Every structure is written in structure tokens, then in C-alpha cells.
């Protein structure tokens, strides 16, 4: 696989520099190493701050969700690898407006241990933090171990809702409760068609035969629970949707938000093919789609594949999703 890059080791620093050059009105980097991005107006006095973070290579995740009505800051790791606790702490300080800080990120060991360390350090600085973990990938653990699931594209819903709650002035515990509520009601599953190549190692993240797909794949190319023949768009949409509907326990009369997410190399046209079938299936089941997102929201460099996320909606959740938000990568009017 070929890449448009310079020195592999400089990859992250350079693209972050590019993001800053492109969006100086919306983002700023408070530390000299530029491994933290925060809203241009951070810290917002009296507002709960939201810090996210994780490995690079997933744009627009995570850096893309820093903005008004979304997260306030992000700590940026190397490709597919956690930011350090020192970086998380810096991000925490840079967004702290006096109302406490929510840590909202995906459930990955490296991130968890580093954010946990930052929690202790922030406390020493007098900043209270609460952690909520994205853990929407139903393929990663059975329902009984839902707390151990990894976090994937569905965290978008939590960013949007928690960001809206923070913006309207909710307290730290309230914002955390919103995020927790969203995550408890979100389920995602993905398929992969081709691997990703890390710039530094130049090795494929996994190997897959011609005509094969990996069902339940993670956004770092983690294996899923099944490897089999590539199915049609309709078949893929069907099996993922059935699984998500069962996991959420939703049925006729319920409402959902749908996210059809591309992993990087999959054309937008193909994502709309998936959405089409998801829409048909949910409609047949009497479940209405009150909000949808189709596009690239959480990628894995140049991996081909897609994921489908469902969020069970109620009035409150839908209202939070529909609140205005703006980052260089995400706009809700």
C-alpha cells in the first residue's frame, strides 16, 4: 500500500500542524509539542470541559470532535497508540473552566491507564474529573461483559449529546450521566475488507484473502468473531442490523439514530447502499430512524470497511443530537 507521507515518524506531528494551519479560527494547540488541540475559545468559564483522546489514524475521530457543542480538547497519541498521561493532564488544564472535566474516550487499555493516571494528577491540581468510556462494539464482548467492550464509531453520539449538555450549562455529573446514558443505548458492529498499514511499521494490520471479509472488526483492525466470504451490501446490512437490534432490545414503536460509518477506503456510494438496506429493515420492524449520519466518522487510515451504529432514542437524546454544534469536521445547524 502506498502513502502520501514524509518521514513516518513525523506523520502525526505534521498532520496536526496541517490541521492547525487550516483551522486557526476554531482550534489552538496550548503546548509546544502540539499534541493537544482545544477549542479556540477554551477554557470556557463555568462550563464543564470535555476531554477526549486516543491514538491517531482515525480522522475525524478524535481531533475532529473538538468544537462548540462537542468536546473541548483532545490529547493526541501516535498512530493507534495512546496519548501519555502528561498530555491528557495538559488538555485537562487547558479546558478547565472551573466546573470540572469529563473524560470521554474509547475503552482501550492504553488510553484507560493513561487517562486514569491523569485523573490522579488533575486532582492534585484541584480539577475534578469523571470518566465515561465508549464501549459500543458489540462484537468485542458478549452482552454480559458489555462493560469490557471496546469503543468504536458510536462514540460520536456521546460526543454530540454530552457536548450539547455541557454547552447548555449542565453540571459535571449531569454531563457524565448524559454520556453514560447515550453509551448504554448505543451498539455498533463493523466489517473489514482490507487492512490498514501503519506508517511506522509498514506492515498490514491483518491479512484477509481475496473475496473474504472480517465480521466484527475493530477500528485498529482487531479481529472480529467471524471471517467469511464477502457478502452483498444487503446481506451485510441485514446481519449487522439484526445483531444491533437484538443487543439494544429495541422493537416496533422504538426510534433510533443510525450511523453508517466508512473505515477509510470505502466509497460513500457503498455507505449509502448500506443505509438503504438498514432503512428498509428497520422500517419493516416498525422502528423509525429519526436521525442519520452516513459518511466517514471514525476511520482506520486506509482500511476498507464499514460499521453500523444504532442509538435507541428518546425525546431528550434526540433533542441533544439536534442541538447546534461546530468543529472543522462536524457541523450541526
Amino acid at each position: 500500500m502506498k502513502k502520501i507521507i514524509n518521514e513516518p515518524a513525523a506523520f502525526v506531528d505534521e498532520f496536526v500542524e496541517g490541521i492547525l494551519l487550516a483551522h486557526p479560527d476554531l482550534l489552538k494547540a496550548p503546548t509546544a509539542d502540539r499534541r493537544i488541540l482545544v477549542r479556540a475559545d477554551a477554557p470556557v468559564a463555568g462550563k464543564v470541559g470535555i476531554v477526549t483522546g486516543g491514538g491517531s489514524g482515525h480522522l475525524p475521530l478524535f481531533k475532529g470532535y473538538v468544537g462548540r457543542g462537542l468536546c473541548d480538547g483532545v490529547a493526541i497519541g501516535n498512530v493507534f497508540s495512546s496519548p501519555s498521561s502528561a498530555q491528557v493532564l495538559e488538555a485537562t488544564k487547558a479546558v478547565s473552566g472551573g466546573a470540572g472535566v469529563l473524560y470521554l474516550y474509547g475503552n482501550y487499555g492504553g488510553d484507560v491507564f493513561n487517562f486514569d493516571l491523569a485523573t490522579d494528577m488533575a486532582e492534585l491540581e484541584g480539577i475534578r474529573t469523571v470518566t465515561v468510556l465508549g464501549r459500543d462494539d458489540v462484537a468485542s464482548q458478549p452482552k454480559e461483559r458489555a462493560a469490557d467492550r471496546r469503543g468504536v464509531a458510536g462514540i460520536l453520539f456521546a460526543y454530540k449529546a454530552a457536548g450539547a449538555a455541557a454547552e447548555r450549562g449542565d453540571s459535571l455529573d449531569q454531563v457524565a450521566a448524559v454520556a453514560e446514558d447515550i453509551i448504554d443505548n448505543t451498539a455498533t458492529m463493523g466489517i473489514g475488507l482490507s487492512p490498514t498499514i501503519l506508517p511506522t511499521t509498514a506492515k498490514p494490520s491483518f491479512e484477509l484473502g481475496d473475496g473474504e471479509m472480517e465480521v466484527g472488526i475493530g477500528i485498529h483492525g482487531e479481529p472480529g468473531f467471524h471471517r467469511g466470504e464477502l457478502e452483498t451490501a444487503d446481506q451485510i446490512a441485514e446481519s449487522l442490523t439484526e445483531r444491533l437490534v437484538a443487543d439494544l432490545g429495541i422493537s416496533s414503536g422504538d426510534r433510533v439514530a443510525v450511523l453508517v460509518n466508512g473505515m477509510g477506503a470505502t466509497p460513500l456510494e457503498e455507505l449509502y447502499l448500506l443505509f438503504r438496506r438498514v432503512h428498509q429493515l428497520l422500517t419493516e420492524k416498525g422502528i423509525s430512524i429519526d436521525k442519520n449520519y452516513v459518511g466517514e466518522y471514525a476511520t482506520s487510515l486506509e482500511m476498507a470497511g464499514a460499521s453500523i451504529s444504532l442509538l435507541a432514542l428518546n425525546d431528550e437524546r434526540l433533542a441533544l443530537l439536534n442541538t447546534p454544534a461546530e468543529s472543522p469536521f462536524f457541523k450541526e445547524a
Partner: protein
Amino acid sequence: MNGNELSIAVRNCLAEFTTYSEELGDLDQALGDGDLGITVSLGAAAATEALDVLSDGATPTEVVLACAKAFANANPSTMAALVAGALLAGSRVWGDSPTVEGDQIGRFARAAAESISQRGKSQVGDKTILDAMFPAAEALLAPAAGANALDAAIDAAERGVVVSKELQSRRGRASWLQERSIGLQDPGATAFLRFLQSWKSANASATAS
């Protein structure tokens, strides 16, 4: 061992340890995301650099803290964070002591393992680094009669690696593989074994007790 001797021993050991990066990366590729090789090579390089500039008069604890900080930030990851925390916890056992000997090593190792267990919400049998670390710490503390403590620790760690191969992962990335993790060797436990082996071969004379 005083701080300076420890610092030299650590650097000798790390130079050898990094030669296992590829093996560890490949094991992590099969069971996780393949970055353990990078964590080890960048982490060892950063720790070595940190020790190169540390004053000769540093205490053993200061040596360990310098390593912990360097390792934590070089390639932050599960292993980097857990190991850094473990080194911190271990060094608390030593306090300001200017030299460390005998069972201070074993007590360090046990405190380190306990730190990982606590932070990682994990225990022996979860198929993690702890499956090698806890038995090794016990062996260091109470080596079989007549046995060299380090050799005993290596044997214990090796048994841990072998036994845990047949277990299902219950923590970290590997746990997502569920049943598919059975039969694959844990990269973290292997890393710990390779560390002990590197210590032995790089510092044969210094560590024979």
C-alpha cells in the same frame, strides 16, 4: 547494588531486551494490535537515554523513577502505563535506600505486580503479564533451596508463559478475541520473561547472588 551499578545493569539489560522487539511485536500482532515491539524498543531507548544523563549519585529509586517516566511517555500504551505504574510502586519499597540487595529485589517485584493487578483489575489466570510476574516475584522471594534466585524467577516466569498459553484472555485487547485467544502466547507475559533473560545474560556476574 548502588544506584550507579543499577543504572549500568539496567542499560546492559535493555540493550539485550530490545533484540526481542520483533518477537514481541509479532506475538502482539496475533493477539492484539502489534505495537508491543514499538513500546519495547522506543521505551528501552528512552529509558537508556534518561539513565545516560542521570547523575552518578542517584539512588536506586531515582534510577527506577527515571526509567518509569521515560518508558511511560515513549510510546504510551497499556504495557507502558502498567509498567511505569509498577516501577513506581516497586520503588516505594526501596524508599531512599542508597543500595538494594537480597529480598529487596523480590519485594520490589511483588509490589510491581500488585500495582499492575490493581490498576489493570487483573489477576493470575487472566492471561496477562501477571501470569509470569507473580510466580517470578515469589521465586525471587523464596527461591528453592540452593537455587539461584534469578534462575528460579526465570523458570517460574517461563512456566507462567507456557501455562497461560492455553487460557482464554480476560483483559485488554486480547480479551476481544474471546475463545480465539486460546492457544496464543501472551505478549506481555513473554516480554517479562525476555526481560529477566536479558538481565541474566547481560549482567551474568553482577546479578548472581
